[in-house]
C-alpha cells in the first residue's frame, strides 16, 4: 500500500545524491541536499502512516527545522564565498587540501 511512496522517496533521494555529486554550482548542490532531506521526510511520513503512530511525523518536523537552520547558514556561506571569489562553483573553493 505504501510501496509507491517509498519508491518515490528512494528516487528523490537518488536524484538528490547524484545532483550533490555531479553539479558544480553551490546553489544547485544545496538544493539537491534539500531534495535528499525531503526524500527522507517522505519516507518518515510513509512509515508513520504504515505503523499507525506519530513518531515518523515528529521526526519529519525535526528534519524540517534542521533543514531550515541549515539553509540559513549554508546560504550565508555561499553568498560570502561568492562575494569574495566571484564564483559559486564548489570546485573553485578547493584551497583546503593537501
Amino acid at each position, binding site marked *: 500500500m505504501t510501496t509507491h511512496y517509498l519508491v518515490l522517496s528512494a528516487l528523490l533521494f537518488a536524484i538528490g*545524491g547524484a545532483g550533490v555529486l555531479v553539479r558544480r554550482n553551490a546553489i544547485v548542490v544545496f538544493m539537491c541536499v534539500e531534495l535528499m532531506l525531503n526524500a527522507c521526510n517522505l519516507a518518515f511520513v510513509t512509515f508513520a502512516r504504515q505503523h499507525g503512530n506519530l513518531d515518523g511525523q515528529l521526526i519529519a518536523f525535526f528534519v524540517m527545522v534542521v533543514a531550515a537552520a541549515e539553509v540559513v547558514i549554508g546560504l550565508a556561506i555561499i553568498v560570502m564565498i561568492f562575494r569574495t571569489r566571484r564564483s559559486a562553483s564548489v570546485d573553485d573553493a*578547493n584551497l583546503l587540501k593537501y
Partner: protein
Amino acid sequence: MQSPVEIVQHSGGVIGVSWLMIALPLLGAAILLLGGRRTDRWGHLLGVAMSLAAFVVAVVSFVEILGLPESERRRGIELYQFIPGVADMGLLIDPLSISFALLITGVGSLIHIYSIGYMSHDPDRRRFFAYLNLFVAAMLLLVLADNYVALFVGWEGVGLASYLLIGFWQFKPTAAAAAKKAFIVNRVGDFGLLIAIFTVWTTFGSVAFGDLSGATVSGAIGSGAASQGTITAIGLLLLLGACGKSAQLPLQSWLLDAMEGPTPVSALIHAATMVTAGVYLVVRSGAFFEAAPTAQLVVTIVGVATLLAGAIIGCAKDDIKKGLAGSTMSQIGYMMLGAGLGPVGYAFAIAHLITHGFFKANMFLGAGSVMHAMNDEVDMRRYGGLFSVMKVTAVTFIIGYLAIIGFPLLSGYFTKDGIIETAMEHNQILGWLAVVGAGITGFYMSRMIFMTFFGKKRWADDAHPHESPSVMTVPLVILSIGSIFLGAFLILDNRFMKFLAPAVGAPEELPAFHFVSTAGLATLALVAVGAAFAWFRYGAAEVPQVAPRGSFLTTFARRDLYGDALNETLFMRPGQWLARIAVFVDNRGIDGLVNGLAATIGGTSGRLRRVQTGYVRSYALSILFGAAVVVGALLYVGNM
C-alpha cells in the same frame, strides 16, 4: 712468633686529637681553594704552616706512643659512629701508622718549603699548595684509618691529588694525558682493592683492622667460615690494589709518565709517600697474607719482577726524572719483596720505605734544583760538569746516590741489605735476583751522577746554571742528613723491628745485622762493577749530545720494556675496536631502525595525504560510499 697486640681505646692527650693531623691540611686546602685569588699573597705560607702543624702533632703523638708500655701501643680513637657497632669511623695510632705519619708530614713539610722556591715564578702557586695540602690530608687519612673503608677514602683522595698535581700544568697536552693515564691505571688497582674490601666484609662481617687479626683469620679457616681460597683471593685482590698505587708490574706504566708533574710532586707523591701506599696496604693486611702463602709468594714475585724491570728502565733513560722514576719503581719492588716475607720482611720493607722516602725525595728535589738552574732542561745529555757550579745540590745528590746504591754505612746499605738477606734466607732465587737488581742500581745511578755533575759541559747555549736559593737547598741538606744516618739508626740493634712489633708482629728470634755476609759482599761487588762500568761508559768517555740508536736491549729499556705497547695492543686497540663496532651498530643499526621507521611513516603519509583533494564532491562521494558500507553491514548483520 710474636703477634700484634690488641687495640686499646684511647682518649685524651695529643693522640686523642690526632685527627688534627688530617683536619689541619684539609682546612688549609679548603681555605686556599675556596679563598681564590685573595689568598695568593700568603697562600704558600699557610700551606707550609698547616703541613708543619700536622708534623708537630705527629711528633708529639709519636712521643706519647713511646711513653706507653709495648702491649698498649696500638691506640684506637673513635671519631664517629656511622652505624653504631657496624660501621664505625676511627683512627688507629700504632707504631706502623705513626711511622708513616712522621714520614708524610716530615718529608712533606720539607717539600712544601722547597716548593716555595721552586714554584716562585708560577702564577698558580697557591693552587699548587692547596693540592699539596689536600694530598697530605688524604695520605694521612689513608695511613691513620682504623678500617678498610676509611683507608679506601684516603686511597682515592691521594689518587685525586696525584691526578690534579700530575696535570698541574694542564696547558701541556702531555701533562694532561699523563694525569689521565695515572688515574685510569690506578682505577684498575682500585677495583681490586674494592672487591677485596667487599669480600672481607661478607666473609668476616667487619672491615676494622682490630677485628681482623691473624687469630681471627686462621680461626675462620679452621671453623670453615672462610675457605683457604677466599683468603688467597683477598690477598691477591689487595695486591692488585697495591700494584696500581705502587706502580708494580703489571700496572707500572703510569709512573714514568707521571714525571710530567712539577718536580716537588714527583718527590713527594711519586717517590716518597703515595707510591709506597701499596707496601703499607700489604703490611697492614699481614693477617691475610700470612694465612695465604700463595698470595705471599705472588707478592714477592711481583716485587722481584718490578725491581728488575724498574732498574732496567732506569738504565736507558736520558730524562733525569724518568731515570729516577724507574729507580723508584725498582726500590718499591724491594719493599714489596720485603713485605711478602712476613714479619721480618715487614720491618725491613718499612725501614727501606722510610729511608727511601728520604734519599729519593732528596735526589728528586736535587734534580728539581738542577732543572731550575738549567731552564727546565731534563735531558741529562745536555748537563755535565755541574758539580762546580752548584755544590750544595751536587753534594746532597751524591749523598742520596751513595745511599741508594747501598754504599756501606749509609741508609740504603742497611735497609736494602736487610731485605736481600731476608729474601736469601727465604728463597735463594729471589735473593740472587735482588742482588742483581742492586748491581743494576749501581750502574744506572752512577750513570746519572756522571752525566749530570761530571764530564764535559754539554749545556744549551742559553743555559747559565746557578745554585738554587737557600729555601730550596736547606731541605736538601736536611734530607741528605737523613739519608746518611737514618738507616743505621733504624736497623742496628733491630730498633725499628722492636718498635713495629706491637703493630705487625715480630719473629721469636730477632735477626742480627751482619756487616760481612755472602749476600752483602756479593751486592757490594756487583754495585762496584756497575759503577765502574758506568764510569767507563759515561765518566771517562765522551757522552754524545744526541742519544745514539743503541742496541735492541737499549731500545727495549727506553720503551719502558714495551709496557705501553703491550697495554695498547692488549687493551687500548681492542677497546677502540669495540667502540668502533658500537658506533657502527649505533649509526647503522639502531639509528637505521629509528630513522627508517620515521621515514616509512613520513613517506606513507605523504602519499596518503594526496587523498585530500579539496574537491567537495570527492568528500561527498566518500561519505556516500561510507554510508553505503554501513548500511550494507547493518543489513548483513541483521540477516544473520
